[in-house]
């Protein structure tokens, strides 16, 4: 594979699917179904990704060098089928961080304009 050395900023903004997959892999490697489970759990089920969207994103992320395969083995929590695991590459980590920073800057603007409460204050219930 010819891996183009691109700056992390060149990938921004990320699509929601790619951002969620990178986040799911931030703490550890996971297989495809594991990524889906993690995303569903973290978003309280509001973000559900189908296999087509998931693997379409995985395909491009592999090609871009954001993630890589880390081997095949069964998941003892599921069954004895071998599953392919994915993990973040160094570039993937940097891109994830760059996107999180970008969102953080946006968030600060929203706070400054009182769209969102300032950090530290309680979000008032309606």
């Amino acid at each position, binding site marked *: 594979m010819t891996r183009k050395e691109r700056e992390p900023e060149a990938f921004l903004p990320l699509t929601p699917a790619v951002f969620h997959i990178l986040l799911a892999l931030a703490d550890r490697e996971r297989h495809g179904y594991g990524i889906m489970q993690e995303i569903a759990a973290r978003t309280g089920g509001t973000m559900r990704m*189908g*296999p087509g969207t*998931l*693997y*379409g994103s*995985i*395909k491009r992320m592999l090609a871009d060098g954001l993630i890589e395969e880390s081997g095949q083995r069964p998941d003892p929590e599921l069954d004895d089928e071998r599953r*392919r695991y994915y993990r973040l590459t160094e570039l993937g980590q940097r891109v994830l961080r760059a996107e999180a920073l970008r969102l953080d800057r946006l968030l600060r603007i929203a706070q400054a304009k009182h769209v969102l409460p300032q950090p530290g204050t309680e979000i008032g219930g309606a």
Partner: protein
Amino acid sequence: MPSSTAPAPSDRWLQLSERLYRRLLLVYPLTFRRAFGAEMAQTFRACCRAAVRESGTAGLLRLWGSVCYDLMTSAVIEHIRAWIALFKRLSGLEKELHMITVPFHLDVAQLTDIGRKRARNEDNMTSVVPTDRQALAQKGALFVVADGLGGHDRGEEASRLAVNTISDVYYNSPVEDTGDALAQAVRAANTVVCDLSTQQEHAEEKATGTTCVTAVLRGDTVYVANVGDSRAYIVRAGHIQQITHDHSWVADQVRLGALTEEQARTHEKRNQIYRCLGIKPEVEIDLFTETVQDGDALVLCTDGLSSLVTDAEIAEIVEQYNPQESVKRLVERANEQGGTDNITAVVARVSLA
């Protein structure tokens, strides 16, 4: 919930769903299917099970709702991307000279067992699936099974040497043609085992040698090289086809019609082979090529399995279980039948779609 009182209906729906989803994967472009089809089906299966666990058949229906939408949108995206990639290649915008064919997905398991009658295990085996996608595309995956013969621990060493030499020579060979590279590797193994034979101290010792069946899966083709009476089979949709011909006296008698398969199985000369590695400096190698299809299983085994377990039984086990479970069950079955020899089996399931 109906699922807890009557699991049978949702089980049926589960199986039906999986089969339907595998069919529906055909809406994706071929290269995408080859790379991820098997994983998507696996992931879908896990989703189905979770949905059924949570809310039975109703959960499965809800899952189908979201999966249909996912299928349609992502398939359209993949087709558009495939067209854009094609356009870029044709217009020279992107020069990717490497093979565009994304390698297949393989699920492999291997197991060897001493059996119930022998003092040592003289079988050896190896499975090599390169993790590097480019290496996998160029060289393919390699499987070797060898059944050693000889006094002391020579048989064991002969089969181990053969297996190691073949994988080393094959993956380091500059020869581009897969069949040629494979034959070269087997010839190299013959030389190495011959060297071992000449170290034999006493002329009256049993001859040292080894059978050897080797398969390389590359793209949608399997290349098989064989010397001796270990076997390679393809199991496709429940039907089993033996690729190799045994170089044994009984197999020749069966071919000539002088013995039936059943008689050959129990014949006193069933262990007599007339070709193996390590006897003569020049060895005649049988080479076969077969086209594989999505879902095919490649089976390599020593006669410790094929002389005790019928082809039909092998097919039944391999069709029903995944490779890991299949090799366990095949060895178990041979041991139930007496385990008269060492038993070795390699099962590799191919997913192209």
